[in-house]
């Protein structure tokens, strides 16, 4: 099973994304964090995913801050991050593609998201 953590402040979106991803690929096991703080709480409890889907626009700690904190930690820095966001402006897309393993704009097709997750996971397993 491939564990995927979704970090997004919209609980409804998280529920439907979890259901959708686990349905479209039986190899996915999805768990969710509704904030950056909750993401780090889960990581501290050793709930380490194979990949993180990270929203950018979140209150308190936004996606950039979450990314920075992840990459600053020796244990968590290797976890691949795909930005999953409604932001379509140039700077966000450009920086997101530079920093992350991929950048996907909402709304997205579930099939496309599944393919990009698998592509990222496969790329890493080949390294």
């Amino acid at each position, binding site marked *: 099973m491939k564990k995927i953590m979704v970090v997004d402040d919209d609980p409804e979106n998280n529920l439907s994304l979890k259901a959708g991803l686990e349905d479209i690929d039986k190899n996915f096991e999805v768990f969710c964090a509704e904030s950056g703080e909750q993401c780090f709480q889960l990581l501290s409890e050793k709930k380490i995913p194979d990949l993180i889907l990270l929203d950018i626009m979140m209150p308190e700690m*936004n996606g*950039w*801050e979450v*990314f*920075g904190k992840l*990459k*600053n930690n020796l244990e968590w820095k290797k976890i691949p991050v795909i930005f999953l966001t409604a932001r379509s*402006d*140039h*700077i*966000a897309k*450009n*920086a997101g593609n*530079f*920093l992350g393993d991929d950048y996907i704009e909402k709304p997205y097709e579930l099939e496309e998201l599944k393919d990009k997750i698998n592509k990222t996971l496969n790329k890493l397993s080949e390294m």
Partner: protein
Amino acid sequence: MEDRKLMIIDDDPDTLIILKTVFEYVGFTVIVADDKSKCISELEKGFRGVIIIDINVPYLNGWNTLNDIVSNGYIYGNRLIILSSEKNPDKRIEEFSEYIDDYVIKPFDVEYLLNSVKKSLLSINNLNEVTA
């Protein structure tokens, strides 16, 4: 290891956090300043490195900040990169041209800005070697 210090002066929190994340990711020590007093305070404490400053920000008053950096002598040991939303630079820029390495128009590509900062840093380090 070379000293990779960067100060980003902008009043837009979104630009600040994005640039801070990008530059820290590639190994820079980053200071962000969203107003003139924070910027001057860091320079007084001895900041030396590359300074990215957005000059088209009404609240921050980039030109005023730039003038204070230069007229108070804080420019020495530092290099400047200007961020602007104006395609054609204001003629006031000529007063500071000897300290400016690049004029980058928003929206920009982070990789371009990264390369520009690296070039500036190289010129500071080369100068330090010559004067050491």
